[in-house]
C-alpha cells in the first residue's frame, strides 16, 4: 500500500515506513537510546531527501522522548534544574546548527555535512563503546573485579559560575553544562538526532552526574531541543513531514515495547557491545558512500529539496 508524503513529495510503501519505525523502535527500546542516529540514515537510504529526513526525525524524537521521560519522572529520576540549564545551551545550539545547515544548503553541501557528521560522531562513539564493553566482557570472563575508573570531571569543578544541582548531587560550574547542551543542540539540528548517545556519556564522564538521573534528565532536555529543531526546520527549510513522522512513531511505539522486553534478557555490557556494532555498521556504510566512486558524477536538484 503506497502513501504520498506531502512534504517529501514522493509515494512510499506504508509498511516499509511502519517497519522502519518498528525496527528502530525495537532497538531503541532494547538499548534505551532515541534511535535518531539509525532512523535518519535509513530514511535517506530509502529515498527520502536528506533535509526532510533530518527535519522529520527531529519531530519523531519529540514523541519518543516524551513517552520515555514520563516513566523516569514518575520514579523521580529527572534533574529538572540540570535539564533546564542543558536545554538553554541546547536551544542556542540548535539555532546555530540551523544557521550552518541553511548556509551549506545554499552551497549544495548539506548532504556532505550530514554524512561527515555521522561518520565522525558514530565512529568515535561506536569505537569508544565497543572498547569499553569489550573490556568489561573480557574482565567478566577472566573473573577480574571491574575497577571503578576515576571520573574525569575536574574541569566542571575548576571553572567559575558554580551552581548546585541537588538531584545530581553536584556543585559544579554551569559553563561545561551549557557547552555540552550547545554541542548536542547543534548536532540535533544538523543530524536529526536527539543526541542521547553523546549526552549520556558526557553527563557521566565530564559532569560526573549520578547515573540514576542521567537518562531521565537527558530525555527531558531532548524533548525541548528536538522541539526547537522541529520548529526551526519547519520555518527555515519547510522539511518537516508530519505524515511521515506519524507513521514512523506509530511503528516506533510498538517496536519499543517489544525491544524493552528483549533488552531485559541481555546483560548490560552485551547490550552495549551490540549497540556499538550497529553504530559502527552505519558509520562504515556512510563512510563508504563518501569515498566510493559514485555511479553518477552529477548531482541534480530542482531547488525544492536538498
Amino acid at each position, binding site marked *: 500500500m503506497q502513501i*504520498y508524503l506531502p512534504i517529501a513529495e514522493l509515494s512510499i510503501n506504508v509498511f516499509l515506513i511502519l517497519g522502519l519505525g518498528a525496527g528502530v523502535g525495537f532497538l531503541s527500546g532494547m538499548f534505551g537510546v532515541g534511535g535518531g542516529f539509525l532512523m535518519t540514515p535509513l530514511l535517506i537510504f530509502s529515498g527520502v531527501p536528506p533535509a526532510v529526513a533530518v527535519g522529520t526525525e527531529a519531530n519523531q524524537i519529540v514523541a519518543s522522548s516524551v513517552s520515555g521521560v514520563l516513566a523516569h519522572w514518575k520514579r523521580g529520576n529527572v534533574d529538572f534544574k540540570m535539564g533546564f540549564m542543558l536545554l538553554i545551551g541546547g536551544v542556542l545550539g540548535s539555532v546555530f546548527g540551523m544557521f550552518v545547515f541553511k548556509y551549506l544548503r545554499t552551497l549544495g553541501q548539506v548532504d556532505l555535512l550530514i554524512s561527515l557528521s555521522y561518520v565522525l560522531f558514530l565512529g568515535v562513539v561506536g569505537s569508544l563503546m565497543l572498547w569499553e564493553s569489550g573490556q568489561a566482557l573480557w574482565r567478566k570472563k577472566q573473573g577480574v573485579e571491574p575497577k571503578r575508573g576515576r571520573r574525569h570531571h575536574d574541569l566542571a569543578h575548576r571553572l567559575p559560575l558554580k551552581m548546585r544541582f541537588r538531584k545530581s548531587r553536584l556543585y559544579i560550574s554551569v559553563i561545561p553544562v551549557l557547552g555540552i547542551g550547545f554541542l548536542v543542540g547543534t548536532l540535533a539540528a544538523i543530524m536529526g538526532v536527539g543526541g542521547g548517545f553523546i549526552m549520556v556519556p558526557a553527563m557521566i564522564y565530564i559532569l560526573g552526574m549520578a547515573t540514576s538521573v542521567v537518562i531521565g534528565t537527558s530525555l527531558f532536555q531532548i524533548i525541548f531541543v528536538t522541539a526547537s529543531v522541529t520548529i526551526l526546520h519547519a520555518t527555515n527549510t519547510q522539511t518537516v513531514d508530519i505524515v511521515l513522522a506519524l507513521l514512523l512513531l506509530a511503528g516506533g511505539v510498538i517496536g519499543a515495547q517489544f525491544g524493552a522486553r528483549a533488552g531485559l534478557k541481555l546483560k548490560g555490557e552485551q547490550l552495549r557491545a551490540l549497540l556499538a556494532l550497529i553504530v559502527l555498521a552505519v558509520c562504515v556504510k556512510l563512510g563508504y558512500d563518501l569515498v566510493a566512486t559514485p555511479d553518477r558524477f552529477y548531482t541534480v536538484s530542482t531547488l525544492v529539496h536538498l
Partner: protein
Amino acid sequence: MRWLTLIPFLLMAFSPSTMAQEPLATDLSEDAVAITSDFNGKDLLLFGSTGDRRFGAESAEPLDVVIVVHGPEVPMKIWRKERVAGVWVNSQPVTFENVPGYYAVATNRALSDIAAEDYLRRENIGADNLVLVSVEDVSLDEKTELREAILGNRGEAGLYQLHEDAVSFPDGRLFRSSIHFPSNVPVGDYRVIVRLFQNGMELDRSYSVVTVGKQGLEQQIFSLAQDYSFFYGLGSVIIAMLAGWLASVAFRRN
C-alpha cells in the same frame, strides 16, 4: 461520463466528409491530475480525430501524430562531483533557469522518420531539442555535458519520456495514446500539443492544458507548511508530544 465527449469524434469518423478541411481535434480523458494521499502515478488517455484526413488511405502519404507534454518550468541546479581528499564532494553549481519538470513525447513511429531534424529543432520537439539556458557562463563543451546529465537524471526519475510507438489508430481517422504521470510528478500546468504530420510537413496542431495539483489533506498540509510554517512546526511538536504521552499511557504496565 467523459467518454460521452468522444461521440462527436465518432460521428465525425463515420459520417461522409462534407467540409474541405476539417481540423485536427483532440481530447483528454481528464484535464486534471489530483495528487491525493493514495496517489501513485496516473495515466491519462488522449483521443483525437484527424478530421477529413485518413491514416490508411492508399492514395495518400501516411499521416503521423506527435504528442508533446511539457510540464511547468523550474530552475535547476547541477553540481559536478569532485574528489577532495578522497571524499566525493559537489563542486560549484551551475543553474539552469527553465528546465521543464516533466517532458514527454509520444509518436506513432520514430521521430526522425516523421519530420526533418531542422524542423524538430526549430519547434523544440524532443528532449534533445529543448532550449536550456544557464545562468552562469560555461563553455559549450561543459554545457553539453551538463545538459546530458540533466536529461539523464530526469529520464531516470521517469519525468522525461520518449515513446515512439505509443500512438495507435483504431480507425482511419481516430487515434489514441496515453500519457503517464509518475508519482514524483511536479505540480503545475502541463501544455499538451498534438501535431499532425504528413510527408514531413506539419498540417495541423491542437493545444490543451492538464493541471496537476495536490488535493484534499495533501494540499492542506502542504500549504500549511509553506504559508504558516511556524504554526505548522508548533502543531507538529504538539501532535508528537500528545502521541508520545498516549503511547506511554497505552502501554503502561502495572
